[in-house]
């Protein structure tokens, strides 16, 4: 799966969590722009983990602040 595919799939996964309909760009941040609280983060991460059959540990999550970083992290986890 290339980066564009990962991007497209995560874009559709994020929709139910994007309550205010914020336009998603590479630099869109989860805590700031999307106002995700810890519960939302857990559900969103679980959705991604199940979709791609990967683990994104909390240690890895700490490094991910925006949408672009998430796409990169998922691409990398898939290759591992």
């Amino acid at each position: 799966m290339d980066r564009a595919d990962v991007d497209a799939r995560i874009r559709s996964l994020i929709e139910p969590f994007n309550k205010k309909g914020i336009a998603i760009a590479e630099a869109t941040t989860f805590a700031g722009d999307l106002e995700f609280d810890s519960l939302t983060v857990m559900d969103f991460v679980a959705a991604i983990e199940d979709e791609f059959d990967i683990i994104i540990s909390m240690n890895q999550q700490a490094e991910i602040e925006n949408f672009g970083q998430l796409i990169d992290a998922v691409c990398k986890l898939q290759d591992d």
Partner: protein
Amino acid sequence: MTDLFSKFDPLIEMRANLLASGVEDPFSLVMEKVLSPTRAICNGRDTILLGTYNYMGMTFDPDVIAAGKDALDRFGSGTTGSRVLNGTYQGHKECEEALKEFYAMDHAMVFSTGYQANLGIISTIAGKEDYIILDIDSHASIWDGCSLGNAQVVPFKHNDIDAMEKRLKRVPEGAGKLVVLEGVYSMLGDIAPLKEMIAIAKANGAMVLVDEAHSMGFIGPNGRGVAEEQGVLDEVDFVIGTFSKSVGTVGGFCVSNHPKFEVMRLVCRPYVFTASLPPSVVATAATSIRKLMQGQEKRAHLWENSRTLHGGLKALGFTLGTESPQSAIIAVIMPDLERGAAMWEALLKEGLYVNLARPPATPANMTLLRCSLCAEHSAEQVQAILGMFERAGRATGIIG
């Protein structure tokens, strides 16, 4: 200069707003006198205690108190040293013997608090390449144990067996795995499906740690906790517990059958780099633990109290944390912090103390009035408590 305290401004403001409404401060109650495990003078009022973790009412047991006084006379007020240097007295060993007997396990290690037991064991056994798979609603001491160590931390949705299994199966081949569960989750008072979860953990090659802080003394045929109740205690690698609940003093412990367990005493920093418990504390703990082995009647009465209070509150129209009573904790869900604080104050004025719990301690941002029962609450007290809840609930509009 940046004021390092400015990050706390939102919390300071929230608290100021709450107190501006005229409510008594729920987080600075003082007990001027403690009359028994179930009664105290709080802020000047004679109050029934329904928000302590004194599940088995051991704090005023005459044998427990006598053991503490005797140890104070014979061994002094404190050890002034670490367990691994000058801080292991005869009483610490006797306390560990009592624990080994209570759980029928090979090894027991006593820490200065339950918090340190989780902090120490979790951070020490799970190293950099290992994975900790844990319930998202785990206690702060478990999370802090994860933070203190270097392992990869992977949470799953509360009590969700499938979510746990999926994550376990995705852990890279060959990595060490520690599954961390609790017997009773203290916020809602619900129990874990340990039988199913532990079977899955074992099938996937994980070691299992279960925190039984809120179940020791009264859940399970011998009061060993939820794992015993569900018949899977033999499968648990590490049981974490505390002396500050049913045992009725302070301190924490880990019991285990792992053949190399004793090495923990050398490598576990929250065990090594702190002073050991005072002699009087370990003496009261050991005496209390031995008495809890014979606690069948008290356990039965505590369950009866839990069923009566749960059924009564439900009949009055309160929303509760669990459909049925699962432990000695019954959580009453409040619509928001303001009304929760108003209800808490109305109960206090009625002469009842419960715990007001709010985020971030609570799951799903809930405000809770947590009731924790004691084996020493009489049937009459439980009825009196229901009357207080009814009056306070109607006065504050929580129930119709």
